[in-house]
């Protein structure tokens, strides 16, 4: 197990470096940050001076090395747009995105797994149909539309929840539902499919034959095996939620890291974009790593592969 973790960890670090390098090269190719920084009245010489001042005229590898060296010490530079240190800027917004992501995935898992299990126990029953309907709707509803509908119902008609902002925990309810609902269908379908497959396998028949109680068969024998792919999926979805909650953050005016990333790209704010890409990549890597470890713990066979 220890060796397995070590191997995965080494791989994760390699992936992080690759991502940061590729994103740096892409941003390097994407355009001239000096022109954007200089503003509309700048002359050619002004832009040239800025390019030199910020070091954009140096070879890409040198710039990357410089950035990496500072980033490793936790110094992500200063945002071109806000003129504030990137680390502080991101830290403030990350807490909002993290809260939203954790709530979202928790909501998705807490609704999707029980629904998936229930649907697998009674295939083609009413509950299976309802679950199917919910998952189709979840895949089909664009989150901006779903978010606005929730606002209309719960904020304007019923006046139960505040429409936007982050002031209280009530502000997070609707964003959590919208974000979590998006991840729910995949998790539920996978739970259902996994459970169906496992329930028809020999060892479940054996367990039943030897007279194990149905609850024990379901949760100890079946779910534990069926959940393995769900864990991997949930980890990927979590990474996706942290980096991809832009639409939800924008509708509910949450000012999280996803929205910051989206806006920073438009503003050519390279230090912020670069730091955010690295952090989002790290999330992905950390969650995939955790999912691997969790799966290895659930299924000893995976430890050797």
């Amino acid at each position, binding site marked *: 197990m220890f060796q397995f973790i070590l191997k995965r960890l080494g791989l994760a670090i390699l992936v992080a470096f690759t991502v940061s390098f590729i994103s740096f090269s892409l941003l390097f190719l994407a355009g001239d940050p000096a*022109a954007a920084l200089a*503003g509309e009245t700048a002359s050619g010489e002004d832009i040239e001076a800025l390019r030199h001042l910020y070091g954009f005229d140096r070879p890409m590898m040198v710039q990357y090395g410089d950035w990496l060296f500072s980033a490793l010490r936790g110094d992500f530079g200063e945002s071109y747009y806000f003129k*504030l240190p990137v680390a502080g800027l991101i830290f403030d917004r990350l807490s909002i995105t993290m809260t939203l992501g954790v709530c979202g995935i928790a909501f998705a898992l807490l609704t999707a797994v029980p629904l998936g299990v229930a649907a697998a126990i009674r295939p083609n029953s009413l509950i299976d149909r309802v679950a199917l309907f919910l998952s189709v709707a979840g895949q089909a509803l664009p989150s901006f539309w779903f978010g606005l509908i929730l606002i209309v119902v719960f904020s304007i008609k019923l006046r139960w929840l505040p429409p936007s902002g982050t002031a209280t925990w009530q502000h997070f309810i609707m964003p959590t539902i919208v974000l979590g609902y998006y991840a729910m269908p995949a998790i539920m379908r996978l739970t259902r499919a996994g459970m169906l497959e496992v329930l028809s396998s020999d060892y479940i028949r054996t367990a039943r034959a030897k007279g194990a109680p149905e609850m024990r068969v379901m949760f100890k024998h079946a779910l534990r095996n069926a959940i393995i792919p769900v864990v991997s999926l949930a980890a990927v979805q979590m990474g996706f939620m942290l980096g991809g909650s832009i639409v939800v953050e924008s509708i509910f005016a949450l000012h999280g890291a996803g929205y910051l990333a989206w806006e920073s790209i438009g503003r050519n704010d390279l230090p912020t974009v670069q730091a955010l890409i690295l952090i989002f990549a790290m999330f992905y890597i950390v969650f995939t790593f955790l999912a691997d470890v969790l799966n290895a713990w659930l299924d000893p066979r995976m430890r050797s592969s």
Partner: protein
Amino acid sequence: MADKASGTLYAGFTKELENVDSYFNSSREGVVMQRALWDGLIYRDPITNEYKGNLAESWTWVDDTTLEFKLRQGVTFHNGEPFNADDVVFTVNFVADEANGVKTQRNVNWMKSAEKIDDYTVRIHLKKKFPAAIEFLSGPVSMYPNEYYAEVGPSGMGLKPVGTGPYKAVEVVPGQHFVLVKNENYHDSPKGQPSIEKVDIRTIPDVNTQIAELFSGSLDLIWQVPADQAQKLEQMGGFTVANESTMRVGYVSMDAAGRSGMDPNPFTDVRVRKAVNHAIDRQAIVDNLLKGKSQVVNTPCFPSQFGCAQDITVYDYDPAKAKALLAEAGYPDGFETDIYAYRNRDYAEALVSYLSEVGIKANLKYMQYSAIRELNMKGEVPFNFSTWGSYSINDASAMVSQFFKLGSLDDARDEQVAADLDMADTSTDPATRIEYYTKALQRITDQAYWVPLFSYNTNYVFKTDIDYTPTPDEVLRFTTMSWK
């Protein structure tokens, strides 16, 4: 809950304001904050356009490049620091120094330095003749407290702004949330005394969410509301919907100088540029898409700006004439080109369809503003639908001189126009200025370098218990708002 009883007015911003320090942002939201938190030496009445003393009681031109101000006495900054000549000298010397990196250099780069004569007399020295100085001093140039600013700098000022203005900032979360309270000791300023106790501003990027906040009662005022939504809100009742024009002008620029390397480049031919002018029904776009107080504009500036003549060469909507001109120029079947645009996709698409009617196949390249501008500076944009807001400066130099004086954004590169504009920009005689602006605008329209399109408008939507009359310069003024 937001209402009169709470004494707090809740307002929504759409864009994240990068830095409250007015010298280090270039957004509309920044102008709104600047007018609330700080004062300039001079004030321009937004209705009558008359200049009045604000932090200065009076001013005189000592010579063509020197302005002398008698300052108002007894004014204090929000932190208690008294306002005097030292503050003016410090502010002007700081912002005029290019090394300090004021974001919009044209707002300040006409000033050379300031000099203290006595505690309440100060002189500002200009680099060269610049008659629009008074307009700039009543607009983007506001006075900062010398001791505080020297200590905290732009980033400190952005987090904890201190000015002499009608409102004080009590809370700033960069880009997201701003709370202002009434300045009880506000001097006897032509801006008037603030009436609303407290203003709470949140940034809500999605317009639909803003409207939901308005419905649920947690916002009192939103602005920059798109025409169709404003129309619906007006029909529903319960809100005041006010439409005002803004100084923003939409235009299409063409690569007349042949910088883009397009081969053959039809835009170098004046007949083609005239054909493009005749091909677009600007009035129809205004009537159907922009609506409100928008109007067709015939020259590259906003009609209320000093020197912005409108009755020059006007190109009517005449597709037949456009086709004839194209044929004459050797393009009987039209031609194909890229057209760039960064905002108002629907307007851009209307332009594309008008052009296709006369045979010009324009492929729309819809990109971010910064990306297009970068290409434009390198001269790689043959055909561009863009806009310019003039930073609310009521002088033609803020627009036409920005684009036609051989700078990197100048696609016409006409030496004669540049020379005339230089004359107009630097003369201190108003009649001479008008004469030369008119001359330059005449040549620009005769050569059809641009298609000046229309002016923009904006909609303000607020609760009916708020008394407020928006002004045509697109600046929200909390000072002139009150509860009914």
